[in-house]
Structure formats: structure tokens, C-alpha cells
């Protein structure tokens, strides 16, 4: 129970910090909208196939930009203070939960923006929402952990991209397939298999993050 309490307090802290730095999330939202705008003024006519690919690429880049600050927005002495107060497991879990919430919000807002600018080719909305949910979860686990690693290094922003992009490729390929099915671009009879694969990858990543994070934070 102690862990749950710690996590909820840390989550409240995260939300408070986000609220005080409203420009950060505003910046990410502006980033998404302007990316979509640039892409669509360049391509003009968008087939469902292109829509699907663009949607996930925009989400991918927006997520990296949103999560790169996870461990650098507060200064290191304050982080040390947190670590003396609470369990590192609670810290990484709270970060992951908070970040998946953030990415979920981001994805739904991008979905709304996409619908506004480029129409909505999604045929099976439930399945598409499921893809967004699993995607935000997977992205948040991987990016949060890599943000923790790259925060320790010198050039963290570049490192974040080169370390995390190869790692999320299995997730993004499965997501593309799942959402292509939701757009009825392909008829997949074994959707549950893709969902299970995504869940298995997420589970593997979160288990590794759990085990390894305690080694990461102490300096």
C-alpha cells in the first residue's frame, strides 16, 4: 500500500509541475498542430494509407519531444531529494503512468487535429482507440526509461532520439498493422495476436525498466 500512496503523491507532484509550466505542454500541442499543417500543405491529397503512416510518425516525434524533459526539467539536487525520500520503483512507475496519460491526451488531440485537417478515415473507432492506448503505453515506457538514461549523459536530446527510435520500432510496426486494420486497409483475422504482441512487448519493457531503474538514478 505504501508504494501506491507514494505513486499517487508523486503523480500529484508531476501534475502540479506540469500545471505550473503550462507553456511546455502548450508548446508540444503547437508542435503537433504545426507539423500536421506543414505535412498536409506539402502532400495535399491524403489517402488512408498515408494518413495512417503520418498519424503515427507525428505521434512518434511529438512523444519524443514531450518526454525528453522527463528527467531534466527539475534540477539534480531536487531529484536527489526525491530519491532520498522515496523508492526508485515508485518514481519510475509514477513517471511512466504520468507520461502515458500525457501521451494519451496528446494522441487524442492529434487525432482531433487530423480529423479537422485531413478527414477521418477510421472505420473501426474502438480498435483505433485501443491502438492509441497501447501505443501511448509502449511509447511512454520506452521513452521514459531512455529519457532517464540520456538525462545522465551530456547531449541528452540527440542521444534520446538515437537510443529510443530503434527500440520503439517493434512497437510502431505492430501499431501500424493494428491501425491499418482499424482503417480497413487490410483484413486481419488475427487482431488479438497483434494486441497480445504489443502487450507482451510493453510488459517486457516495463519489467526491464523496473529491474534496471534502481541502478540508474544513484550518482
Amino acid at each position, binding site marked *: 500500500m505504501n508504494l501506491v500512496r507514494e505513486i499517487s503523491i508523486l503523480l500529484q507532484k508531476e501534475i502540479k509541475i506540469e500545471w505550473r509550466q503550462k507553456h511546455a505542454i502548450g508548446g508540444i500541442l503547437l508542435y503537433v498542430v504545426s507539423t500536421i499543417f506543414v505535412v498536409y500543405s506539402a502532400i495535399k491529397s491524403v489517402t488512408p494509407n498515408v494518413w495512417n503512416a503520418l498519424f503515427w510518425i507525428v505521434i512518434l516525434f511529438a512523444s519524443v519531444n514531450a518526454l525528453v524533459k522527463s528527467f531534466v526539467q527539475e534540477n539534480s539536487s531536487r531529484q536527489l531529494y526525491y530519491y532520498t525520500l522515496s523508492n526508485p520503483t515508485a518514481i519510475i512507475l509514477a513517471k511512466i503512468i504520468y507520461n502515458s496519460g500525457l501521451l494519451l491526451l496528446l494522441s487524442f488531440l492529434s487525432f482531433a487535429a487530423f480529423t479537422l485537417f485531413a478527414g477521418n478515415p477510421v472505420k473501426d473507432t474502438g480498435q483505433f482507440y485501443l491502438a492509441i492506448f497501447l501505443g501511448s503505453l509502449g511509447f511512454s515506457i520506452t521513452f521514459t526509461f531512455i529519457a532517464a538514461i540520456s538525462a545522465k549523459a551530456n547531449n541528452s536530446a540527440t542521444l534520446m532520439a538515437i*537510443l529510443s527510435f*530503434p527500440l520503439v520500432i517493434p512497437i510502431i510496426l505492430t501499431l501500424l498493422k493494428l491501425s491499418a486494420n482499424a482503417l480497413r486497409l487490410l483484413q486481419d483475422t488475427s487482431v488479438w495476436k*497483434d494486441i497480445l504482441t504489443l502487450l507482451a512487448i510493453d510488459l517486457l519493457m516495463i519489467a526491464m525498466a523496473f529491474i*534496471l531503474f534502481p*541502478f540508474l538514478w544513484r550518482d
Partner: protein
Amino acid sequence: MIRFCLSNLKPRKFIFMRKYWWKILGVILIIYSFTLGLLVPLKPGISSIDPGSMRTASSYQMEIVGYNTFYTRAQDAVRVWLKYDSIHALAASKTRVVNDRSLVADFDIPKYLPTNDRVGVVSVIVDDDYNGFSVVPSTVFITQDSVDKDIVAGSSAWKQGRIGNIHSKDQFNFPFRVQLSETIRNLYFHVPFWFSMFIIFIAGITQSIGYLSTNKLEYDYKSMSFTLVGTVFGIIGLCTGMIWAKDTWGTYWSWQEVKMNMTAIALLIYLSYFILRHSFDDDERRARISAVFSIFAFAAMIALLYVVPRMVSSLHPGSGGNPALGADDLDNSMRLVFYPAIIGWTLLGVWMASLIYRMQVLRDKLYDY
């Protein structure tokens, strides 16, 4: 000179054998796999057959081009059959040996096929006492003009050619596949590199875990050395695969081929590991964080190489992209070279890693970097 040699043979001089036997074994196994893998000839086979389609109730002269065959050395006549199924076959009325590599067989195709279908597909079997027998499965299409309803006429005509008295040769040969032909030997280089890369990466991971549990820098150096060798092996595996792909699939790089792309991504992960290492000044910090990343990346690599490829189809052997070798892809003569090659390259990789490790330790002592 002789006395010097003899003094070398004293038992205490062989102590180095007890320490370095695995290096010698590795080199011997690699030399063995090179010699056998490149020198053992392929089984005699058939590389092309003309014509590829026939009609019923007409005669054909079929030209057969052999590979590694010596038809002129056959004592008895070379026999050729068209095999429809397990009970229906048609023997050639006459065969003529043109030279060692080519053969002409005359066929009188009966009026009906032993089936109700318009088109039947037959396999070609060639047999003689010198080269043994070879089969080209499902290669010639035969079209019938009219269909025999109760199949009696077709069935009785096709039962004439009994296949029997087949010569099988028990020589040490590698199998002949039309699409692969001599490139089948690449199996002893391309695939062992993947196997030994994986073994060496696992060794690197155990050293990373060792570092995290003991905080001794030597584990970090060992882990780095293993990872470096594993990455080099991965690049060699990719390059040998690309050469093979050019020969059999017609292109160096195929975006349809999931395993190829996943491997490239896995190598990107390991290259980024080295970039991560170079972005720290502090030894302890570099060791700890790169150990954490390499364990995390290894888990992701398992998903990349062993989960995703099973979900989609692949050009690689094994059904449905299954990254395994089936009984069709590897026969006993190939196993005899393939497994020693894996062990040999792994031992050589460990040797290379130990050299890199010693170099790193010296560097640490002398230049402190």
C-alpha cells in the same frame, strides 16, 4: 635444431596447451569449415529442363541439362521418367546422352492424363548407375485437350512406366538446389555468424549484469569488448546475407524482408550503445549507464529478432518467417560443417574480445582513458 625441437616436446612446455586449447580448437574448426565448406562438391543435379509445358497425344524431345553430372560415364542407359503421382509415371521411350552435362529424352505423351483436370503437373526423375538419381519436383505442365471422364484410359497408359531399380549414391556431397546452386556454401558463413553473434551478445549481457552487481570496472570492459565483437559479427552476417540475397533474390536489400530490416535496426541499437559510451567523462557513470542500456537493449532485441519476424512472412527459409532451419534446409552432410563453424567462430570471437579487453586494460593503465 633437432635438440631444440625435442626440448620443446618436454611435457612442461605443453602447459600453454592447457590454457590456450580453445584458441587452437577455434582456429582448427574454422580452417576445417573453410576447407570442407568450399571444397566438397555438390550432389549431381538437374539445372534446367526444356520444354516446360507439353500437350497430350504428341511426342517431345526433352533436353535435360545436368549440374556436376557425368552422363557419359554411366555403364547402363540413363533412364528418365515423368512422375505424375505415387502410382502413375511415364518412362522415356528413348534417351540419348549428348555430353556429360546434357541429355535428350524422347517422350510419347498418351492421349489422356490420369486425372479429370485440364492441366497436370509432373516431376522429372533421372537415374543412372554413375550419378545416382535426381528429381526435379513439379516442373513440367501437361495440358490435355479433352478429359477422360472415368480416367481408365489415362490411368492405364500412365501406369506403364514403373519406376524401379533406382541407384542411390552414398557420397559425401552437399545437396543441390536449383535456386541456390553453389551459393549453398554461404550457409557455413552467413548463419554461423548470427549464431555466434547471439552467443557473444549473451556473454556481454552477463558481464553487464556482473558489473551492476559488483561495481568492478573490469566487467564493464569485458562487456564492451564482447558487444564490440558481437556488433562486428552482426555486420559481417548482414554483409554475407546481402551478397547471398543479390544472388538468390536479385537484390542486395529488400524492404519486404522483415528479418533483414530488423537486423539492421538491432545493429543500430548496438551502434547507439557505443555513442552512449562516448558521451560520458566519468568511468563509473559510463560503466553503470551503458550496462543498464545494454541489458534494456538486449530485451528489445529479443522482441526485434525473435517476436516480430514470426508475425509476418519472410523470404528466409523456415515457414512463415520462422527463424529456424527445417529438415529441408539442412541435411546431415551440411550439419557436419555447419555446427563446427558455429563453435569455431564463437571461440574466435571470444579470443578477439579478450584481446580488446586486454588492450582496454592497458589503455586504462597507461593513458587513463
